[in-house]
């Protein structure tokens, strides 16, 4: 880990059941493994499948004050309502990642941000498991931002997922790699 001061925050948002909280948890866990300070703040309570869900993750080289973030460095929006709600809050020159399987890019109103459009649902279906869309998004985000090492994310899976889901870890790793490869290809 570098000793330079480091600070990054991201809001991950979508509808309940899309796995946005898992994305946030894995990012936070991986960063903690790399010696960073982290906070993970979920929405909670009166949410349900199909309702909105979001979490805020802060990663820093020093102790973190506020876990609440108004203008994040990045937003990962997995559906249209979350783009409309949080897309406007990304810092200028920040990263706006959108799930272009569910979001028409005409809906993106910002031209002062780095837009990364990934059709994560389509890619997940193509690869045989529609439930892995969130892991593809995570892989793409990690490759784009280099916030954490991919291996730290892989190592975090067994910590974040309940033991009864550990048999699914290899397919999650594969999905993360698919997301990473997609961004690598874009950057060539």
């Amino acid at each position, binding site marked *: 880990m570098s000793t330079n001061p480091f600070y990054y925050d991201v809001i991950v948002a979508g509808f309940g059941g899309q796995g946005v909280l898992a994305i946030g948890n894995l990012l936070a866990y991986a960063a903690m493994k790399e010696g960073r300070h982290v906070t993970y703040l979920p929405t909670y309570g009166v949410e349900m499948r199909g309702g909105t869900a979001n979490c805020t993750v802060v990663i820093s080289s020093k102790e973190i004050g*506020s876990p609440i973030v108004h203008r994040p460095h990045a937003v990962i929006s997995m559906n249209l309502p979350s783009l409309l709600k949080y897309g406007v809050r990304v810092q200028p020159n920040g990263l706006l990642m959108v799930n272009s399987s569910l979001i028409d890019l005409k809906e993106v109103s910002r031209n002062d941000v780095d837009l990364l459009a990934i059709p994560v649902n389509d890619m997940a279906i193509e690869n045989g498991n529609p439930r892995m869309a969130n892991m593809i998004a995570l892989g793409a985000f990690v490759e784009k931002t280099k916030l954490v090492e991919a291996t730290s994310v892989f190592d975090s899976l067994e910590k974040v997922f309940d033991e009864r889901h550990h048999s699914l870890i290899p397919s999650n790793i594969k999905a993360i790699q698919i997301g990473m490869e997609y961004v690598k290809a874009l950057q060539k």
Partner: protein
Amino acid sequence: MDQDSEKILVRGNEAVAMGAIDAGCRLFFGYPITPQNEIPEYLSKHLPPLGGEFIQAESEIASINLLLGASATGARAMTSSSSPGISLMQEGISYMAGSELPVVIVNISRSGPGLGGISASQGDYFQATRGGGHGDYRTLVLAPSTVQEMYDLTYLAFDLADKYRNPTIVLGDALIGQMKEPLLRRKPEKMTLPQKDWALTGAKGRKPNRIKSLYLQEGELTEHNWKLYQKYERMKKEEIRFEMVHTDDAEFILVAFGSMARVSKTALELARNEKMKVGLFRPITLFPYPEKPLYDLSKQAKKFLTVELNTGQMVEDVRLSVHREAEVFFYGKPPGALPPPEEILEEIKKYYG
């Protein structure tokens, strides 16, 4: 139980449960309510294998009375709830203060009044720090601000309860309860504590002990109340805890506790970036309140801004502490959206200079 050597990423609520287990608590009584359910959830799984008991009672009133009975035997025991549930427990808390029973009560507070809502709030400050139930009593009140403190202060709460034979409240809120942060499950040093020779353990070979809060003989209750008073005065001398950030050269002091202290800490950094000499005072014990250190600061800084998730409660203690040495301003947010640091920075600018 082995201590985990490396950091784990857990919710504040889980950290409370772990702190209780590591402090030797083996008895939990409670009734479910959002946003503290991860505490009973964790304990229901982990207490029985340790030989403990987890009881989901039929109500908060039953829970607090089960707690009274358990602690009367000298056992370490706790309950947790959230604001409306804590209101239901007030009669029992008053009885335990009167009977001098050492228990830990965790309030992961939510918004009120009434059933209110499940969002974070600091609206229970008065209830926690002024006794809460009937009669002239106080509870020790600890206000964690990080997940690590949720663990450390829960652990400490058991020691303080035993040291003073007094109910001790851990006052968190939905934000600190639900958020995750790295936790080092280190066992803090344990206090040297008095023997529990008052406990009801069966009177074999000794005179029976009595645990009660009813005193009808002439003069008895006066004496009992003075005894309790002495105890609260001793807490004020020995148990003040607080944190100060950048106060050395500060001309303007933010005062906030729990979740709001975190947001204020970032607001302070933003203010420092703009060359404003702002400091932060964070009470960790809400009772006893750190009056003296706050008063001392008022000789150096002439403006104080209290930030709370309510419409003005702790600000009264800040005013009482600084007397008339400084101006005390207030920024409050009733239940709803949580203020980002930029919002507090705007408030600082309003009064600074």
